[in-house]
């Protein structure tokens, strides 16, 4: 025992007091009690799989967050079950000329603190959405229209080129009082939605909403309090639903869904989604590289057993793609089916003179349910074809984007998911297949997929106000993209939601969100 230097020490009581106080102080002041106040009378608890850092979607935008964000803030329009733009803050939204849309703000629209929704609010919101770096919403606008105030709540949205999808795109611009808005994520503050933020704890990712007494629109919300909790582990979301600690959980894997199907007072709802998950080739390859040849890409795609993935690993919760964008989107065109024939894959590769090919697959964990398992299955699919596949998994938020921009290591196939919040095929086409050479200069293109003819078709379509002509242009663009075999295999996952039977009125839309105002507690 360390022999301490002797000396006249303080009396025992003094030392006792000192140590006791310090220790106790450390413990007591910093203790935390339970966060949730579970009076289960008229409340609903939602469990999200990602931490909802903000309540307006300037930067990140993931499926379930839309439901919560739209409960507090609203946009001029909203996408309904049939993926059409319904009017919300706007009482009129008409295309008065190819490059101009005239919009009338609904006179009844007021914020939860009584302030009226003004044109200035829309103007400031549009500007701030552009200022946020890496925003998910901004790149979907071919260009940002100018807001011209016409007085008494009326204004014109004027752009250089016609923006056919403007009503759809404006559903993502959430409106906040101009004075309170900032070029950053807001995790509290005032909105015009059915609920107001009573508590926001970004530390734990938990929020508490109360009914907005002054809600201007119909239907009026009936559930008194809504708790939003962050639960990253899917297994704990599923078990919490069983123990009724949570009422609604979303984006759950097929296996959890099948587990919950058998459970008495739980209902699983699913609808084919608008997200496109695929194993996209890296197009930034030198000309002589085998992967630059579409026929080699086609041959490789024959090795993938789509049925085993769709109905085995994902037990039927996804639909194999029959085109280059989800079949649920407006303007989708069927371009062909994926084929599974390892023999044909081997013979084609031999014909094309490709042997002992090494491929590197990369993905960010959590991109889509069972992503890691599917990637491990890919390794096995390619063994009989004589292709050696190596896997590289990235953690969420890690530096995968550096690899995707071609600024880090070389890779061949990327497991990627591209969400769609507008319901239009145009938006996904613009995002994935319409990159320009100029964007490639700063590595902002979509993995080197640069085909000027496809890009010009998409641009012409987005400016074509006549629907039939527009769909024709888009069909051509999709056919051309399909012929390039952009991905090994692709699928459209169902939007899946599970909730306790005591909670009703959850009308799940393909963009994987629902209107909280319509939710009722039995």
């Amino acid at each position, binding site marked *: *025992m*360390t022999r301490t230097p002797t000396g006249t020490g303080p009396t025992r009581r003094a030392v006792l007091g000192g140590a006791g106080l310090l220790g106790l102080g450390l413990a007591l002041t910093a203790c935390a009690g339970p966060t949730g106040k579970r009076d289960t009378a008229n409340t609903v608890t939602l469990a999200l799989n990602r931490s909802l850092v903000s309540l307006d979607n300037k930067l990140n935008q993931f499926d379930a967050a839309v439901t919560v964000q739209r409960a507090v803030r609203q946009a001029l329009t909203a996408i309904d079950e049939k993926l059409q733009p319904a009017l919300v803050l706007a009482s009129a939204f008409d295309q008065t000329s190819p490059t101009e849309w005239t919009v009338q703000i609904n006179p009844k629209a007021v914020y939860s603190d009584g302030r009226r929704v003004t044109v200035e609010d829309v103007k400031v919101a549009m500007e701030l959405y552009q200022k946020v770096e890496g925003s998910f919403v901004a790149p979907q606008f071919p260009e940002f229209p100018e807001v011209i105030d016409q007085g008494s709540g009326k204004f014109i949205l004027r752009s250089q080129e016609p923006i056919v999808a403007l009503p759809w795109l404006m559903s993502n611009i959430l409106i906040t009082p101009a004075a309170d808005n900032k070029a950053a994520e807001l995790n509290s503050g005032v909105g015009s939605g059915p609920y107001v933020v009573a508590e926001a704890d970004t530390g734990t990712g938990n929020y508490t909403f109360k009914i907005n007494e002054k809600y201007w629109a119909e239907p009026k919300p009936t559930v008194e309090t809504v708790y939003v909790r962050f639960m990253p*582990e*899917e*297994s704990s979301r*599923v*078990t919490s639903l*069983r123990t009724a600690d949570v009422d609604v959980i979303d984006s759950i*894997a097929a*296996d*959890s869904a*099948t*587990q919950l199907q058998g459970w008495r007072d739980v209902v699983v709802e699913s609808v084919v989604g608008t997200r496109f998950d695929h194993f996209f080739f890296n197009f930034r390859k030198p000309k002589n590289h085998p992967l630059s040849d579409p026929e080699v890409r086609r041959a490789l795609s024959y090795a993938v*057993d789509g049925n*085993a*993935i769709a109905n*085995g*690993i994902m037990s039927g919760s996804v639909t194999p793609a029959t085109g280059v964008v989800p079949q649920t989107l407006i303007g989708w065109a069927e371009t062909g089916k994926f084929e599974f024939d390892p023999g044909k894959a081997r013979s084609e590769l031999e014909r094309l003179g490709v042997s002992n090919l090494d491929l590197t697959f990369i993905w960010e*964990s959590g991109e889509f349910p*069972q992503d*890691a*398992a599917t*990637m*491990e*299955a890919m*390794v*096995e699919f390619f063994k009989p074809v004589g292709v050696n596949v*190596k*896997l*590289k*998994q990235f*953690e969420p938020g890690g530096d995968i984007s550096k690899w995707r921009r071609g600024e880090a290591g070389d890779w061949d196939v990327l497991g990627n998911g591209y969400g769609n919040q507008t319901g239009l095929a145009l938006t996904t086409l613009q995002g994935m297949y319409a990159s320009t050479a100029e964007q490639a200069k700063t590595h902002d293109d979509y993995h080197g997929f640069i085909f000027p003819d496809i890009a010009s078709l998409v641009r012409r379509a987005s400016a074509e106000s006549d629907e039939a002509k527009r769909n024709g242009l888009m069909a051509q663009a999709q056919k051309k993209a399909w012929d390039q075999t952009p991905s090994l295999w692709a699928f459209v996952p169902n939007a899946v939601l599970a909730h306790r039977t005591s909670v009703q009125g959850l009308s799940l839309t393909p963009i994987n969100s629902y209107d909280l105002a319509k939710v009722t507690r039995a």
Partner: protein
Amino acid sequence: MSAVTDSVFKKSAVVRAARATRVKIIVGAVLTLIVVVPIVLARVLPVPDPNAQDVFLRLAAPGTEGHLFGTDQLGRDLFSRILYGGQVSLLIGVMAVLVSGVLGVVLGSLAGYYGGKVDAVISRLIEAQLSLPLLMMLLLVVALFGSSIPVIAFVIAIANWPEPARLTRAMVLVEREKPYVAAAVVLGVKRFAILLKHVIPNVISQAVVLALLLLAQAVLLESALSFLGAGPQRPFATWGRIISDGQDFIGSAWWIVTIPGLVIAFLVIGVNLIGDGLQQGSVGAAFRRLARSVTAMPGRK
């Protein structure tokens, strides 16, 4: 005619202590061998390929169609995945023990033998290491330098070297005072040679027990790291990863999570029991007294 009959003798403290030690070592050896032997013989045993998948036989319960432990989310045989996964876990564990053992013994003996400034520096390092938030630091290193097997083994070694260092230092402190060291000095043997040839060999014998305890700790640490995602690259799976992947199927396939955990527990309990048994046996007394003289430093155990 001694009054100590057999029945009396059997209840004597000494006999009971010896029996308890023997029981521990036997139970420990059995548990360890049950796990280690199949893992080492994995290549020879009639075990299916760990990566062969049958997607339509996924999440099958143990015993279905010859799968002893059932199948995982890709229909791969869980028994063979645990065996091959075990090879990596054991390899990492053994490598970590070797590195931390060597590092610990070298630094420990330097500190013990030369004392003074050398001892101060090394002891401060040991103390600083104990106050570092261990798992955070390991995760940081693995997250930043990639998760290959050597990196993980090295990281676990970094976590475990203070233990052997402290105990070796204590042993050397005692050995140094012994007459044979003084005699060697008189004979003009250089100080370092004395340390190397005489002092360390004496100390090594007691280090064997320590190696077992370190192996147990290394295996636990490796499984925690790979549970948190810091394991070797996919599709290869160590125990920790099998459990973390299996978490999504607790409801429908409880065995994916349960069995690998049991295997880890069996191995680590076995190794700990052998270590504990040896510690109480003949080596015990001296070893324990030394260990206690070391508790002057804030011990971790």
